[in-house]
């Protein structure tokens, strides 16, 4: 008689190649890189059209900026519900958004249209939210 007290349910795992494809699809001529990272800044997946740059440091800086603004929001607005950060810089534009406790970061050229990048970020986050959420629950 076999007596299992726990049901052995399948684990939820990340298919890295598929994730990479998804990020790749969002690329256009204006977009330089797309990075998916943990809240601490560790890279989970990335696509980088600019081979000179290292995604690791960009990711670390982006996550740092995110946590600074979350902290700021807690102090000033009494809310940690940060939705999106958009940075319009001289040498490039950045959009940082949140998908199931991971950060999605899109790096674009200065010529890119911010509205378009924002839309892409929102769509990607919406698309990735559910699968990433089920991934988190397993831990």
């Amino acid at each position, binding site marked *: 008689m076999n007596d299992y007290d*726990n049901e052995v349910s399948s684990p939820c*795992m990340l*298919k890295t190649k598929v994730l990479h494809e998804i990020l790749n699809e969002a690329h256009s001529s204006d977009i330089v890189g797309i990075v998916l990272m*943990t809240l601490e800044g560790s*890279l*989970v997946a990335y696509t980088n059209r600019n081979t000179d740059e290292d995604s690791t440091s960009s990711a670390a800086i982006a996550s740092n900026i995110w946590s600074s603004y979350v902290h700021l929001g807690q102090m000033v607005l009494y809310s940690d519900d940060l939705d999106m950060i958009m940075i319009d810089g001289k040498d490039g534009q950045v959009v940082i958004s949140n998908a199931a406790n991971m950060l999605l970061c899109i790096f674009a050229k200065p010529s890119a249209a911010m509205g378009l990048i924002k839309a892409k970020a929102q769509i990607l986050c919406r698309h990735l939210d559910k699968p990433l959420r089920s991934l988190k629950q397993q*831990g």
Partner: protein
Amino acid sequence: MKKKVLLMGKSESGKTSMRSIIFANYIARDTRRLGATIDVEHSHVRFLGNLVLNIWDCGGQEAFMENYFTSQRDNIFRNVEVLIYVFDVESSELEKDMHYYQTCLEAILQNSPQARIFCLIHKMDLVQEDQREAIFREREEDLKRLSRPLECTCFRTSIWDETLYKAWSSIVYLLIPNISNLENNLKKFTEILEADEVLLFEKATFLVIAHCQVKQHHDIHRFEKISNIIKQFKLSCSKMQSNFQSMEVRNSEFAAYVEEFTNNTFVMVVISDIAIPSTALLINIKNARKYFDKIEKNDLRSGFHGE
């Protein structure tokens, strides 16, 4: 669940040293301190959590050996799962060694005919490197012939290199309940990770208990080499009062991760696609952990019921 393992062989053939290195965290140098084993030394070694290997390290001095074959015969040779017979490659009494071996086999045939038999040609480090293979093949042929109708598997071993791990990994592999279930799951795991290779080590001994290989590799001895290297590293960590938990090795050709996995195992994942970030892999390993934990628990329990 207890499995009885007999470790036999002439006096000073290296049985206790082997046992100490694999199961008691001795390094090769430490075995110099060991003295002759008196009569039979019983050790119960926990392996993979619930599995208890009941190792009968039988002292090899003649007086004891005579005893085993007469008054203690039934007691010693009954219910044996595995017989490991150790031959010292430099022995000057080959005839006598073979005679004792055959007497053991007779006792096994009578009391535990289903037992698996392993012959370890030990102390191979004392033989010149270019002659090792030839001498081993010669002994192996003789032993296989003498062992009929029983079948024996031969290994050449030395405590000074990884060959010891290869022999013991193969021996212990046979004792693991439901190994095919574990291997099937490991295969699926490897496929999802898109890894080149995944190894499962037993936590205490670092013997490779299962592996899944997707990409061909030229070195067939890599498993035991890795066991040896990581075990040594683990021992040096404990000497510094810290516990070995995980390791990441990266170069331009591959990335390898060694992580604590279930309660009783460590996992090693090797990936040649270095563009995949570590975090993604570590997330996957973490998520698979619970699943393999449950499998392990169920396997060990159902194995017990199966007895």
